[in-house]
C-alpha cells in the first residue's frame, strides 16, 4: 500500500479505531505510572511537543509542532499504546518502538509503503515495557485532568521552584 499525505490523513480515524492485533504482549500490560512519568519526561522527549502537562501547550518547545492534548484524548489503553509505538503517519507524531514497522505490527504497513515525505518519523525509542508504563502514567495521572495548575507543575518537576511553573503562580 502506497500512502500519500492526504491518504494518510484520511486513514487516521480508521487507524485509530482499528483493533490492536499484533502488539507484542509479552510485557505485563499493567504498566508502572511512576516509571511512565520518567519516560515521558526524560526518555521519550514527549514534553517537546505535548508539554510537561501533556496538554499540547504548557512548556511546548518553540520549534516543535504542538502535540495533541492528551488530557482530553479519547484513546483507550490499546489505542494509546499503538500510537506511541507506531506514531501517526501524516502527522508529526513519531514512532517510539524500535520494532515499529518491522513486521505488520503498525497498521499492517512497512515504511516502504509510504511516500518519502510522509514516512512516519522516528522518535526517541524505548521498549514495550516502557510503552505500557507511559500508557499507565497517562491513564492514571493525566487523562481527564482540566487546566494545569501550579501544584501539578511543581509536582511534575519535583521542584517547588521550577521555572516552568512560574506562569501558573
Amino acid at each position, binding site marked *: 500500500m502506497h500512502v500519500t499525505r492526504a491518504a494518510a490523513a484520511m486513514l487516521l480515524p480508521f487507524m485509530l479505531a482499528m483493533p490492536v492485533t499484533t502488539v507484542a504482549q509479552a510485557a505485563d500490560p499493567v504498566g508502572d505510572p511512576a516509571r511512565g512519568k520518567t519516560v515521558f519526561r526524560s526518555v521519550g522527549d514527549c*514534553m517537546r511537543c505535548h508539554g*510537561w502537562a501533556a496538554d499540547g*501547550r*504548557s*512548556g*511546548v*518547545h*518553540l*520549534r*516543535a*509542532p*504542538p502535540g495533541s492534548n492528551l488530557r482530553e484524548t479519547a484513546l483507550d489503553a490499546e489505542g494509546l499504546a499503538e500510537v506511541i509505538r507506531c506514531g501517526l503517519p501524516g502527522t508529526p507524531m513519531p514512532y517510539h518502538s524500535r520494532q515499529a514497522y518491522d513486521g505488520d505490527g503498525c497498521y499492517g504497513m512497512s515504511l516502504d509503503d509510504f511516500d518519502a515525505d510522509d514516512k512516519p518519523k522516528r522518535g526517541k525509542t524505548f521498549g514495550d515495557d516502557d510503552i505500557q508504563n507511559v500508557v499507565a502514567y497517562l491513564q492514571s495521572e493525566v487523562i481527564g485532568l482540566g*487546566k494545569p495548575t501550579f501544584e501539578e507543575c511543581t509536582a511534575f*518537576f519535583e*521542584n517547588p*521552584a*521550577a*521555572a*516552568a*511553573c*512560574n*506562569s*501558573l503562580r
Partner: protein
Amino acid sequence: MTTRSRLATLTALTAVSLAGAGFAQVTPERLVAAGSEEEAANWLMVHRTYDSNRFSPLNEINASNAADLSLAFAVPIGGLEPSGFGAGYMEATPLVDNGFMYVSDPWGSPYKIDVTSGTKGQILWVCDTGIEKDPTAGVLLANRGLALHGDNVITALNDGRVVACNNETGEVAWDVQAATEPGEGFTSAPLAVGDKILVGQSYGDWATRGWLAALDAATGEEVWRFFTVPEPGQPGSETWLCEESGNPDCWKTGGAALWVTGSYDPETNTTYWGTGNPVPMFDPEFRPGDNLYSNSTIALDADTGELKWHFQYTPGDYMDYDEVGIQLLMDVTVDGEERKVLSHFGRNGIFYTLDRNSGAYIQSAQYVTELNWTEGIDPKTGMPVEYDPSKSLQTYAAGVISRGSDPIDHCPHITGGVNYYPTAYNPETGIAYGAGQEGCSEIATQEMAAEDVMPGVIFLGGTYAGSSEQTGSITAMDVTTSEQVAKQNMPYPNHSGVLVTPEVVYSGSLDGTMGAYDATTLEPLWSVNVGTSFRAPPMTYAVDGKQYVAILGGPVGGNANGHEELESMQQSNMLWVFAVN
C-alpha cells in the same frame, strides 16, 4: 615567611600573571571612535561600530592569501546546561580590546580570554552572574554578546537581569533586575552609549510586551524605557484593535521584542532598533490592526527614549516577519544626492533603504530568490502594495490565514531571509552584505481563547513547517542603487551572518563549515569544517600587527530545517580562531 603570607604572595602573583596583564578603559569616546585607525586592531562593541557596519579595515588576510587560513587555536566554552528547550545557542560576537577577548555562552556568562600569544586562548575569568540554570525553564537559550564600558563587561541575561562584571577581576560590580514581568528577559548584547547601557526586552514569541530601556552605566538604575507596544491612549495604540477582538488586553502580550542590538548615530544622538513580530504571530484576529511598533525600525533620542520616527515594514503581519535585524547606518549618494541612510535586510526578503534622519522611504529591492508574500513595494510609501490602512486585517499576496482557514505557503520562510544574522557594509565600496535562509513555509492559525493565554509563556497562535527545500545564501547589494551585485548560494540555511574586510567576506554554516569569500564576487576562497554548528557571526582582530578571525560554534538545535545530516551533530561550545601563518 609564614605559610599564610607565602600563600598571600603566591595568590597575588598569580592574580597579576593571569588577570593583571592590563586592559584599557573603554570610554564613551573610544566607543564613538571604534572605527578609527587607532582602534583598527580591536572590536569594542557587538557590531564593531555604532553604525553596525561590521566592517574591519584589517587586510593582512586578503583575497590573495585567504586560501592559506588555518586554525590558530580553539577554546572550549561552557554553558551547555540545557533549559526546558535543550542546550542553548552560541550566537555571540566576540569582543576584543588590546589582546583580550570577551565572549558569552548561551546562559550569558561572560568570559575574558587572553589571546595575546596568538597560539592559545587562556581563560582569565568567567564572571559568576548567579544565573540559575533551571532545566525546566521554557526559554530558548541564546546570548548574542556583551558590552564593554569603563571598567566593566556587561551582560544581559535571560532571567531579566543586567550584570556588570569588573574587567580586571571578573567580579560582579552591579546586578539589577531590569525586567520584572513574567517571561521577560534578554538575549541581545547591551549597547553602551555615553553614560547609559541600552537593553532590549527580547522574548517576543512569548506572551510579553517589548521595550527598550536605558540603564545608568555606573549603577544599572533605569533612566528611561520605551515600550514598543503602546498602551491604550498612547500614540500608536489605535493600531491595536483589542476591543474588536473581544480581548481588550491583547496589547499587554503584543510582542514587538528587541532581540538584536541596535545602532547609534552620535551626530544626532539617535539610536535605531529593529522590532519583532506581533504576538501571537499566526493569529492576527487575536490582535487586529497594524500593530505598531512591531516589525519596525524605531529611531529614539538616546538621552530621553523619545520616539523620533518609525517605519513599519509588514503591518498587521501573520508571517513572523520580525525586523529585529541589523540597522546599517551609511552616508551614500542616491540619485546624485548625499544622503544619510539606514539600510536593512528585511526578514521579509526585501532590502530597504530609508533616510535615517526622517524615516522617509528611499528605495528597496528583493534580495531572496523566492518571494511571494507581496506583489511588490509601493515606490512612494515603501509599503507592500496590498497594504490597506483602512483594514484591521491585512491580506497579502500569498493569501491570508485566519481561524478556520486552510494553511498557506509563503516565501520567504518565516525564518527569513535575513533574520538576526548580522549583515555588514563596506564603506569603501558601498556594498552591503546579507546572509540568510532561502525557502518557503506553510503556516496556519490555531485559535486560542483569551482566558487561556498565560503571560510569559510561548504564544504562537498557530503552526508552521518548511514547505520547500531550505538552503542559504550570501547576497551583496549596492546601497546606492539597491541592485544585487553578487550572490553565493549555499546548501544550508545561513544563520551566521557576515563579517566584511576590504577584500574578504567571512561566514559560518549550520553544518560546521567556516568560509571566506571574495568580497567582490562572493566566490569561495577558503573553507574548513570544524563540526560545530555556526549560528554566530565571525569577527576579526589583530594582536601585534597580526590579523585573526574568530567565531563561536555550538549546537544546531532545532534548526536542521529538514537536513537530516545536521540532526546527528552533537553539542559542543567552542571558540575558533583562524590566521594565515
